[in-house]
């Protein structure tokens, strides 16, 4: 396994032929039922279809319990779906995981206390069998990328929460995985650090061409980061709307752009169920024009 292994072009698997482009990740009719057949049965995901292009940054957003984290874990092969398939660069999610195609980051930085900052970043490299010299060189490079160059030999607990999270992201990027899977990684950060980290992530993704799937609760975060925002609803977890965000290159001014607010509004409306698939199914009592609007947008997606 080398650091530079890049995904083989998708399309060899019949499942991916449904996607319009050669997708990096293809999720096809995925269902996830926990505790099936028991009284505490939960239908976490139902009929999820999603194709994510290489280098794309996609956010999953929705209320608590809508299955967005479960969907991320299905893609990561941390949970095996009860139905449907996940294809990653033409191979199964399991094979992709074993090939270390994924880098993961969670809400908690989850750094290991007994390792220095550099050693934490080198963990995936050790597991991939890199030798010491190459590991050192790579962790130096990554520390520069997340702007923590002088903290290599510090202990994780000596760093602030934001710095720890940057280390966790550097660790996720260590093996140059083609795909980054992130579960609310900035959730515990203060607003300023959070916005800084978002800008960093957009920059890193653009510089490295990494595909990112990002789970979040925050609408502005999803809009700022993503090319597309996938809106989900709960019980059962399903995709109700996919908002395409056309904001161009992100800068400090992006968050004050009227187009940014328009996109935030669109995602918020979708979360409230006023637009999207759910709205068309349930909004019989709603005003006729709003209903027509929703149908039009839902139609655009198809």
């Amino acid at each position, binding site marked *: 396994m080398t650091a530079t292994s890049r995904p083989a072009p998708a399309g060899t698997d019949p499942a991916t032929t449904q996607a319009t482009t050669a997708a990096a990740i293809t999720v096809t009719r995925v269902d996830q039922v926990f505790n099936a057949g028991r009284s505490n049965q939960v239908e976490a995901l139902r009929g999820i279809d999603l194709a994510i292009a290489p280098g794309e940054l996609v956010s999953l957003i929705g209320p608590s319990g809508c299955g967005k984290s479960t969907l991320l*874990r299905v893609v*990561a092969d*941390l949970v095996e779906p009860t139905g449907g398939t996940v294809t990653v660069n033409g191979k199964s999610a399991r094979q992709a995981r074993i090939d270390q195609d994924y880098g993961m980051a969670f809400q908690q930085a*989850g750094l290991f*206390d*007994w390792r*220095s900052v550099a050693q934490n970043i080198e963990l995936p490299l*050790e597991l991939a069998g890199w030798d010491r010299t190459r590991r050192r060189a790579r962790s130096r490079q990554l520390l520069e990328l997340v702007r923590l160059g002088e903290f290599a030999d510090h202990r994780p607990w000596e760093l602030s929460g934001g710095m720890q999270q940057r280390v966790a992201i550097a660790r996720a990027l260590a093996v140059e995985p083609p795909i980054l899977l992130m579960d609310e990684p900035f959730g515990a950060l203060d607003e300023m650090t959070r916005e800084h980290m978002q800008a960093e992530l957009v920059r890193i993704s653009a510089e490295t061409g990494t595909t990112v799937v990002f789970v979040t609760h925050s609408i502005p975060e999803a809009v700022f980061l993503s090319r597309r925002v996938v809106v989900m609803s709960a019980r059962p977890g399903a995709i109700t709307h996919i908002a395409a965000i056309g904001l161009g290159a992100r800068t400090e001014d992006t968050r004050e752009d009227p187009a940014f607010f328009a996109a935030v509004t669109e995602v918020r409306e979708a979360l409230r169920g006023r637009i999207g698939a759910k709205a068309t199914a349930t909004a019989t009592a709603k005003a006729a024009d709003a209903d027509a609007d929703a149908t039009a947008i839902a139609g655009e997606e198809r």
Partner: protein
Amino acid sequence: MLAAWAGRTARKALVLVGVVVAVGLVWTGYKALGQATDGHWPGTSIDLPVPTDDRTLPPFWDILRRFFEPQRRGDDTQLWRFILDAAAFTFREAAVGFVIGLAVGLGLALAMLRSGWLERGLLPYVVVSQTIPLIALAPLVVAWGNQLDVGFITWQPWMSVAIIATYLTFFPVTIGALRGLKSPAPEALELMRSCAAGWWATVRKLRLPASVPYLIPAMKVAATASVVGAIVGEISAGVRGGLGRLIIDYAQQYLSDPTRLYAVVIGAGLLGIAAVALVDLLDRALMRNRPREAR
């Protein structure tokens, strides 16, 4: 760093002296009280819980002085030297028992981690094993040991005692290690999985280091248990040369020389403290780079 260590050690030594002085004062005061009131609580005719005559409660100073007197008539070896040799003998048994117990405990914990089926099947018996009285078990172990033909080593009685010490040490290690191995957060385990780490890699890089803060207190318990196990083992196995035998001998001759028994009991206590102090050194080495609140 060294200065801080020296300061800590000096402070500890001072505390130790303080404790000895305090115990001596209470001891002497209680004795003086009993002698003044003829063994009653002041102003009553209720007996004091412990008689204060010199045979039951020898003067505190006499006990300390006894360490520097010949251990018995016709043998010029000072008692402290004699107790130290016996302690070294017992320490070897305890240390071997401790190391084997550590290995067995870790092995059991890993096996139980590996298989939930094994954990459910094995854990109750691990607990039951500790309810069997050691005095019942010791003669059995000695009997087995005498029959044992290991081949490359000749089985010696002290080895049986080490096995008896093992029996007490593996239990806290098993429980502590199992808890520690299971302590990593789900996210940490998911991270390892996402890096394609197998079971053994996850144990080596995550579970074992994470178990250290759980393992160290368990090892401290095991260290004292190994000393107790070795002493009790010597007594019930009838092995000569260690503190256990000394305690029996001195107890039998208590009437003629009471301070000697007190001295050897103090020696046994000091051996236990030394055992814990060794684990403490390991603790410092392993936890050097961890956050303060985890220490």
